[in-house]
């Protein structure tokens, strides 16, 4: 299962497994992001290239206005996926 929500303080919270079949669900929230935002990975167990793709698409779109996504609380395995994909050079990861 995958879940995406927006907290009262504006953070985007990811939960579960973000795979190719869940990209449209993720897009329902990510497509509404127009300014810099924090994406919290604390409860995300898994992401594939499809998930990386929707994050990159969002980053590309908002960077035109000088905004960016900050990704926080990744587990080690997801961090490894970002590193291998070289996405650690694209996003601010804390």
């Amino acid at each position: 299962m995958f879940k995406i929500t927006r907290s009262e303080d504006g953070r985007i919270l990811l939960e579960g497994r973000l795979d190719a079949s869940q990209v449209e669900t993720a897009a329902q929230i990510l497509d509404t992001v127009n300014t810099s935002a924090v994406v919290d990975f604390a409860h995300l167990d898994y992401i594939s290239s499809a998930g990386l793709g929707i994050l990159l698409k969002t980053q590309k779109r908002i960077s035109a206005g000088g905004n960016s996504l900050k990704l926080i609380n990744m587990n080690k395995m997801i961090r490894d996926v970002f590193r291998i994909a070289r996405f650690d050079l694209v996003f601010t990861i804390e």
Partner: protein
Amino acid sequence: MEQQFPKELHALDAIFGFLDRFYSEHRIDRAPAYALSLAVEEFFTNIVKYGGSKKGEVTISAAYEPGRVTVLIVDPDGVRFDPTQAQVPQDDVPLDRRPVGGLGIHITRQMLDTVRYEYRDRKGTLTLVKNLEPQHVQNNTK
């Protein structure tokens, strides 16, 4: 273990369920399990999106032996697709021109120990091998 899956993205839930049962049965740790699940998703998704045929079902089998897991993904009817030819992402490509296509295959090749592809008479077979360190298996006596 072996199971057939329709060539639809919604089959991913069932595929992950199948793999999770396999990991649980053989007490395989989260890190190699992640690498294998990622590889299966990336290759299965490629079959669904670019395989060129909805005929037949994809067979996924997983086998454990001490020190390694081998997963086979068999598409009985599709076009040739050689994942060993995926391109490496280039750091010097600007953000707005950075492609996502091929990325998943690149990641899985980095995370697995063997990715082998065979194609004959429209049947494609992918062999994925992940070697296991002793800490990747918890007291496995099977």
